[in-house]
């Protein structure tokens, strides 16, 4: 029989804190309220322990990030659940680590998330290189196994892209990430970057692309 609840890590006191109103997430008015809020406000609330806000953030951000991560992970780490776990886990860690980080706008939060994910993916690959990976089809290949994106454009090019991206101003980086990597519509990008119109968002992405290409060419020279 399955009896006691085993509190291996946390304490029930913490959990009580996490769900102050018990049923809040099932209360439809509460979730409507959640929906109407900006992501920044949700981040604030999630940080103060509001699970409904955290769930809403997950629902908003995870699907795209998961697809994105899929393109960045080597095959052995790309089992559907693995990717989900990795992304979700990173997301939650980021939420917890945010601390005093006050995103200027939603794009900044996204940028932060992407960076955390990139770091996490690198960590995972390093870890796999050190130890045998969890269940690789071919252990010898695990470390050098390229991600789909790497396969598509080559690892040198990817490196040039990533490092140039890091040298850009944060807003340019966010514009590229939102449009080129995550395929957000311009309207969402306008909101995320605080642009007044769709046209302005489109222009911001185009200018960022030109600057990125220039930066990449500089790295090449």
């Amino acid at each position: 029989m399955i009896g006691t609840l085993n509190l291996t890590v946390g304490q029930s006191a913490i959990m009580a804190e996490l769900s102050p109103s018990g049923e809040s997430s099932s209360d439809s008015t509460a979730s409507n309220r959640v929906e109407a809020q900006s992501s920044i406000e949700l981040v604030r609330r999630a940080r103060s322990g509001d699970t409904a806000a955290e769930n809403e953030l997950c629902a908003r951000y995870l699907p795209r990030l998961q697809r994105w991560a899929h393109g960045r992970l080597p095959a052995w780490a790309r089992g559907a659940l693995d990717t989900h776990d990795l992304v979700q886990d990173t997301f939650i860690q980021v939420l917890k680590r945010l601390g005093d980080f006050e995103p200027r706008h939603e794009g900044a939060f996204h940028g932060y998330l992407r960076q955390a994910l990139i770091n996490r993916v690198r960590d995972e690959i390093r870890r796999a290189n050190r130890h045998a990976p969890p269940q690789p089809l071919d252990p010898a290949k695990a470390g050098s196994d390229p991600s789909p994106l790497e396969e598509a454009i080559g690892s040198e090019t990817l490196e040039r892209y990533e490092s140039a991206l890091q040298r850009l101003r944060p807003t340019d980086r966010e514009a590229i990430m939102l449009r080129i990597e995550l395929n957000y519509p311009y309207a969402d990008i306008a909101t995320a970057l605080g642009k007044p119109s769709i046209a302005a968002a489109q222009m911001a992405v185009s200018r960022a692309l030109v600057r990125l290409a220039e930066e990449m060419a500089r790295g090449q020279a």
Partner: protein
Amino acid sequence: MDKPDEHDLLQVATAVSDGVAVDWAHFSTPQAPSQATAVLREMAVLDRIAQFHRKDIESQTPTDVRYGNETQALEHEVWGHFRLLEKIGKGTFGVVYRARDTKLDSEVALKLLNSAFELPTEARNLARVRHPNVVTVYGTDQIDGRIGIWMEFVNGRTLGSLLNSNGPFGAREAAGIGVDLCRALAAVHAAGLVHGDVKAHNVMRAAGGRTVLMDFGTGKDLVTEAEVSGSGGDDFAGTPLYVAPEVFEGQPRTKRSEIYSLGVLLYHLVTDAYPVEGKTRAELERAHRNGERKLLRDARPDLPDDFVYAVERALSVNPQERFATVGGLEAALVRFSDVRPAAQPVPRPRPVLKVAATIFGAAAVAGATYWLVNRPTTPASAPAAATTSTPGAASTVAASLPATAAESTYQIYTALYRVRGTSEQQLRTGERVAPGDGLFVKLRVSIPAYVYIVNEDDQGVSYLLFPLPGQAITNPLPAGINNRIPGTRDAEVNWQVNTAGGREHFLIFASPERQPDFEEMFASLPRPEPGRPVQPARLGSESVSRLRSVGGLTAPAPKENALRLAQMFRIPLSETAETVQGLWIRQLTVDNPK
């Protein structure tokens, strides 16, 4: 061309960002490379990166591609209270979009007809047909001069597309599809209607295996009629290949002509060819007149005789020689398929207890879920969707929301994990647990869902494992994330195995809707609390009897004191995500030896 200037670069960047094809060769220059051409070269790299991400997203999101290969992102176009997300199909009479119903916050397929057409009465009629194998039409309306029909969004591929990519089907698989379609058409025919356009591109295989008959009565069949009986055009789409010979001669479509079309579809599935072929209408007519027809046996000598016989009989030139009803064809096909014979209708409980009747309400849903995979339901008696062109449409739709929500398809994935020391391992049927092991469930759903988890041991002692009061995770569980039950991600709480002996059955129930009857029944069950062992208890025999009526499926005759949930719900937990409707119940059994 000359060296690209800043303005060119910006234009190219916009094209890259918009996903518009760029003619890179146009910019290539044989002259000494300048800084500008180097930048342009990098822009070409960025174009590839952008394309990769667009492609990657499409390939990973089966929900993005439906009725064909055409997808097109849309930005904030609206029709009424629908936000158009992307174009997923196009026909002469209109365009099909994946769209979000902003009032019900759900995804639908929205077909917008060109303005020249009137509200099709067939759509109205077919909205009455509710069957797991028929796409559910939710409503239709005319807004801004455009008629739209919104319906269930089916996540899957058409048989035509499957045939193209995988080649011909085997007899068993084709027969299974045929059985599903017979059942779908039986529901359509029972409503006094004829589908009129049965073909490989109008049948979807949903993720999870459900066969769904699509695209009827929404203008498309009118196209077919015009194409086939019209005297003008010689060129036509593939559809006339499915048309029965008597319909070519001007007779109306009937149930028997529909059986012919289904026969053509089955023939096509196993051969990738058609019994009567022709490139033009005239050729096809001539072939029919001359009896030029390739027999299935000649096309596929390896197929079982009875399958060939069933298909050939459906394809009889004389309608009277075909099966009289789709039921006849179904009976002939069912033996080759993995599908079980049609279930007897579940006997309705006598209205003794009000609560029992309510439970049976749940049973109908449970049955639907089960039968989606294994056998058909009798056509559901759900209220018809709103089908009106007045502004009142929305409120009528909203009124029918509960039925719609219960029938909406969703995806679910769940797995049971064992925590032993610091290691976590996914448990599969037959694996072992031992006292001291921690257990948790990982569960992901595509829409918010109410989840109930019960543990039962071999003695019939049951525990409610979820939902538990005082935990951070509560029903409904949010969509799109891995929920770790019972523990949150921050505080890893597990259930703990604290005695040994026999086996442990885990029953996981999920539903888009709250199940008050489950909650009431499970309320009597003991439940674990932090640090405190629980007192064993059983479900009262009355409760179990009530649950039996929920099952009504595979429950064996009850032995005294041995009524077990585990015996009622014996569908094993799948290791992959399943696409289901309504109430979903799965079981996982692990050994817990002494």
